[in-house]
């Protein structure tokens, strides 16, 4: 601003000169000495800051003091670095460093920005956070829970608007235990009465595959893989795993890790890649290995072997070691191979049952023989029923699982050894059924207890020490405590 045409607000004179104080420009009135105006001390970069205000996580106005714990003062440089970061882990560290004690709303915004979700999800999560924060169930919870609540709001809005994200990612961002996150998430959903769809593994796997640093920029050429091909192959493997009982009820992340590893190996199944263990692969891809991923790899390989056997043109025996080369072929024709495998298995079972029934002495009609061999119950027939139980089926029924309809046998098997469970009969079954733990046989003599019976003295006396025993016990305890104190 030029000195000409200005009036001093104190005395009204127009005699104003430039009188810089060190590096700061100042306009000073000569008559009274008051400073009319001054320039800025520091210069902002030309063209505005690197991070535009709308993309920062600073909020313009403050909500009520209850929601405030501290001030967020990010520097411009840290923000530009933040937005350039690809790795989520690095972002977590930045988040902790720059967000000294952020407000809840700011944290929700920060999480949304890190995950790079769209505007809708961000707004929705802010709304949910406000609702949840003011709900009476969350008013008096600990600060740690309130922090976890921010992540849960983001998780909920992502699920509702079809943005695939796992609980594991949120707990990693918040640096909290995933069980704690899950518990608060479920409480929040219950209290706010919101319905959220469940996530499908196949949706999340794309995001998961992107985390692996396996492109040609990060690793040498022979180990590199295009992210798109990797994702496609991994999705096919996960779908196959879902069809064969490996996915149901399991945590999704180890399955995705196993699928990604096998996909990577099968895209170029040369000796070099096949020698790579899961450990090494995770090291190269800079991903933290999970213990259960090894088991999933073994399970998926087993399924692939079962299907690989059905390929008509494969002559040699298919083992987990050489099945990787066949993976592409198996995945392309997986439905046909599944059907073939099922049919082969059924035929084999039928032959087996006919053979074993032919050996046993013939009793009754042929059809009842077959049904006897084929019948089974999943739980033993030692049934424990209460007299007042209205369900009172005294006689355990035999249940037929096989989709072929066979006549049910009404005479029960009070078998001493329980019949094989359905896991052994069907080709694909969940591993917990195939390797079922042996159940301890329940004593059946408790069915006639009434609760009001006479209790004989002798029974009770067995639970009480005689005076001599009590004295000995006390003496021994005293001696033990003496020796303990002598030792220490």
């Amino acid at each position, binding site marked *: 601003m030029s000195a000409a045409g200005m009036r001093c607000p104190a005395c009204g004179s127009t005699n104003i000169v430039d009188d810089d104080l060190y590096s700061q420009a100042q306009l000073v009135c000569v008559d009274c000495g008051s400073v009319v105006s001054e320039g800025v001390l520091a210069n902002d970069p030309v063209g505005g800051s690197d991070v535009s205000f709308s993309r920062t996580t600073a909020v313009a106005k403050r909500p009520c003091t209850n929601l405030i714990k501290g001030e967020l003062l990010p520097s411009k440089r840290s923000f530009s670095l933040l937005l350039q970061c690809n790795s989520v882990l690095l972002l977590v560290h930045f988040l902790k460093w720059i967000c000294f004690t952020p407000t809840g709303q700011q944290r929700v915004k920060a999480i949304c920005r890190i995950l790079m979700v769209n505007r809708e999800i961000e707004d929705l999560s802010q709304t949910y956070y406000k609702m949840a924060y003011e709900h009476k169930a969350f008013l008096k919870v600990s600060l740690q829970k309130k922090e976890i609540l921010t992540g849960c709001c983001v998780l909920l809005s992502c699920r509702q608007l079809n943005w695939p994200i796992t609980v594991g990612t949120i707990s990693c961002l918040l640096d909290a235990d*995933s069980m704690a996150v899950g518990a608060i998430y479920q409480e929040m959903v219950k209290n706010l009465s919101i319905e959220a769809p469940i996530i499908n593994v196949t949706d999340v796997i794309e995001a998961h595959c992107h985390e692996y640093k396996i492109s040609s920029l990060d690793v040498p050429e022979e180990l590199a893989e295009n992210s798109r091909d990797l994702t496609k192959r991994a999705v096919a493997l996960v779908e196959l795993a879902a069809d064969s009982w490996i996915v149901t009820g399991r945590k999704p992340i180890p399955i995705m890790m196993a699928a990604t590893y096998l996909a990577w190996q099968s895209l170029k199944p040369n000796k070099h890649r096949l020698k790579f263990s899961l450990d090494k692969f995770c090291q190269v891809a800079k991903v933290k290995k999970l213990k259960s991923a090894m088991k999933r790899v073994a399970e998926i390989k087993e399924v692939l072997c079962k299907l690989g056997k059905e390929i008509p043109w494969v002559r040699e025996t298919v083992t987990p070691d050489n099945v990787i080369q066949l993976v592409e072929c198996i995945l392309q024709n997986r439905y046909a191979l599944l059907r073939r495998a099922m049919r082969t298995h059924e035929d084999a079972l039928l032959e087996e049952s006919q053979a074993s029934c032919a050996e046993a002495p013939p009793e009754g009609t042929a059809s009842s023989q077959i049904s006897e061999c084929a019948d089974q119950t999943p739980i033993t027939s030692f049934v424990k029923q209460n007299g007042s139980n209205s369900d009172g*089926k005294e006689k355990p029924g035999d*249940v037929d699982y096989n989709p072929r309809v066979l006549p049910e046998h009404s005479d029960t098997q009070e078998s001493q050894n329980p019949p094989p469970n359905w896991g052994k009969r069907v080709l694909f079954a969940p591993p917990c059924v195939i390797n079922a733990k042996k159940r301890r046989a329940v004593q059946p003599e408790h069915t006639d207890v009434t609760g009001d019976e006479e209790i004989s003295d002798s029974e009770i006396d067995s639970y009480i020490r005689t005076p001599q025993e009590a004295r000995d016990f006390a003496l021994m305890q005293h001696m033990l405590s003496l020796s303990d104190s002598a030792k220490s």
Partner: protein
Amino acid sequence: MDSSNDEALDIIITNVVATFRTRCHLNLRTIALEGTNVIYKPEVGKVLMKLRKPMITASIWSSGKIICTGATSEDEAKLGARRLARCLQKLGFKVRFSAFKVVNVLAVCSMPFAVNLINFTKNNRPIASYEPELHPAATYRIKNLKATIQVFSTGSLTVTGPNVQNVATAVEQVYPLLFECQKPLAKT
């Protein structure tokens, strides 16, 4: 159970928890000294006493409140509780067996089919919840029965409720819902 199908569902009760009071103060040190099969936990302030005949573990507090766990039926729990009270009487305490109540019953049951948990949760949205990352089973809570059912994809159920009648009713209620979401065992 529906009379239309011949299948019988076996509900096996694995645990019954009951409480009762002795209406008198109990000296835990005396019990620990003179009772066999007793574990004294002074840091928590209770004594654990195990009975053999009905396999029951009882937590005894000095106020006279006792919790019995491990019975396999309500009557067995009552018998065990009475045995315990008798035992304490013999130890010299003026025990009056009162306020016996079965608090929790845990039962397992197995469906003759596998269950598609995702469909089951979708069909029964607010009552059922399923988070595969946290727990492999879907949880179904029946409010009026105060029962919780955990449904596993293999068709196994774990039911907890305040008494055996509720548990049985809960299984009856949930059976048709599970039936419509069943998964064929032979995948095509």
